[in-house]
């Protein structure tokens, strides 16, 4: 995870911060990348996370954090350009390809990622996982959605409630 010391970030040499996962793994990352997280941004602006201190993240385990940081590092340059009016189409296409690849993951990982994106308030990642979940839902009936999203089959009461709310989904006229 260690990024090169040199760097031509916004303010001269890239500042590094240390993040500590719930299972006590330390990650060293550029401040610009970590700042994609609204939660971390404030701490980092206050000068936290530098030196040997590190920022503890008790809600995020190391596997998830490394995944999250992979995203942040990839997206940090574009974010630094402020949505990047000067980004080329190639760059954007590359990011898109990366994003698609990135969420092509197991459901349990996806879930951890959703929670991490939420806790760390990383807006781009939140949108990305929302889109992924939406893609999983598209064209499915409520029962299929339940199964896709890992619901147990409904109890009779839940079934009644579901029916009461909507709908016997006829999927008529298929």
């Amino acid at each position: 995870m260690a990024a090169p010391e040199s760097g031509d970030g916004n303010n001269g040499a890239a500042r590094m911060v240390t993040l500590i996962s719930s299972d006590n793994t330390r990650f060293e990352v550029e401040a610009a990348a970590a700042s994609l997280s609204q939660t971390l941004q404030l701490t980092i602006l206050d000068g936290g996370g530098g030196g040997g201190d590190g920022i503890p993240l008790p809600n995020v385990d190391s596997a998830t954090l490394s995944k999250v940081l992979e995203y942040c590092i990839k997206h940090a340059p574009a974010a630094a350009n402020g949505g990047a009016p000067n980004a080329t189409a190639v760059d954007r296409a590359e990011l898109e390809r990366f994003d698609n690849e990135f969420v092509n993951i197991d459901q349990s990982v996806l879930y951890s990622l959703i929670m991490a994106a939420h806790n760390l308030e990383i807006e781009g990642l939140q949108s990305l996982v929302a889109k992924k979940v939406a893609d999983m839902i598209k064209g499915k009936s409520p029962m299929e959605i339940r199964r896709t999203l890992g619901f147990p089959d409904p109890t009779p009461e839940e079934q009644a409630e579901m029916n009461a709310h909507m709908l016997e989904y006829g999927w008529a006229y298929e």
Partner: protein
Amino acid sequence: MAGSRRRRQRKRHDDLKPAIRVNFVERLPQELVGKIHGHLSFLDRLAFAAVCKTAGHPVPQQSDDTAPWLVFPGETEAKSTFFSLAEGRAVSARTSDLGTRGHVVLGSSSGWLATADEHAGIHIVDPFTGEHAALPDIRTVPFLRCSLSSGVHFFVDTEPLQKIRYGGGVQDDGKKSLITPRSRGIIGDGVEDAIHHDGRFYSVSSISGTIEAWERISNNSGEFKSKVVAPGRAVPVVKGFHLDRKYLVAMPDGGLAVVLKYIRDERPRMYQQPKSWACRFNVEVLVDAARGRWKETRDIGDAALFVGMNSSVCVCVSSSSTAAAGKIIKAGCVYFADDVLRQAAERRESDDKAYGVQPRGRHGGASPGARAAAMVGATGVVHAFRLTMDICDMLVANSGCDKVFFGRIILVPLDMNGGLLPVPHQFFSDFQNSITFFPFDST
């Protein structure tokens, strides 16, 4: 049927093989649920909402659904069918749970459906969650007046309406005031029908048939100015019928067409048989706007035209995204919703007599044919239809009209967004701008 559906679901279920099943919807952050909704189309949102609802998530409102969709009554009154034109799919919903049983859909705004019951009570319904609430009594609207003379009906008092909307600064000289789509005869060659098309309002005038495009004047007064797009032409005479209405429609290719509605009163054949009437439609396509050339056509191809009260809509049935629409909507047809109020009420009574409409809640498998549809567009423009298929068939057989579906509007839609107000005039000349509510269920 249900069995095969279950099997199909089971099969798809087996195809999905997540290594670990995590029930994460229950714990999804609420903002994320909102974001997921943002990526889903209307029907997918319905399905997702049904799941989320049981997981205790509130469903956020969204108003950016762009595709129009249709609400048809199901086979019985207990169900409605939502049909998305863009997706070519349908789902059915229980009207009792949506609080729409026996109601007529008036329109939509910001994801809410507005409906009205037989007592003119207006309700809003969230079709995603089934949540519904009653709006304040219609008589609390300051510019609506209520008359109890012949059944309850309501009419718009235009003066306070204009004061409320324009601060009283607008002169009532016709052009500057409200564009009233049914103002034929009131202000001379006034606007008879108007549509929103291609980012502008277009209108057809009542006497000359002139097509005008309307643009907002850029001085913040909210006024619109019109420019003639094409001159009208003499209306063809149809033997035995007289011209009743003109409707403006945008065709699938973007061109404009005028639908002419001719009607004829049918003489009752038997004693005490209710009065009936027949109608037919001519479609005139604008071929060359500059020269004012029109062409009559009996073949509108894959299009289906919805005309009647409120803004007309043309649906292209065969385009790939709406292939399934062909099973519900027939290409080459004009769907018509009554806009002559008194006649609509008469039809209602005659249906009940002629077809023995059963009391609510006791419909068997096949309903007595009453089908209502409401079209809700992105702009919140409202169309309420009640298409009566068997009456239609009878009339088509009796009157020689072809390609016509006969319908009647039960309730004049009131645009909840404060857009164009429907202004029927013919039978209520004493209340120039009247909006009438008819009871639409006899029980």
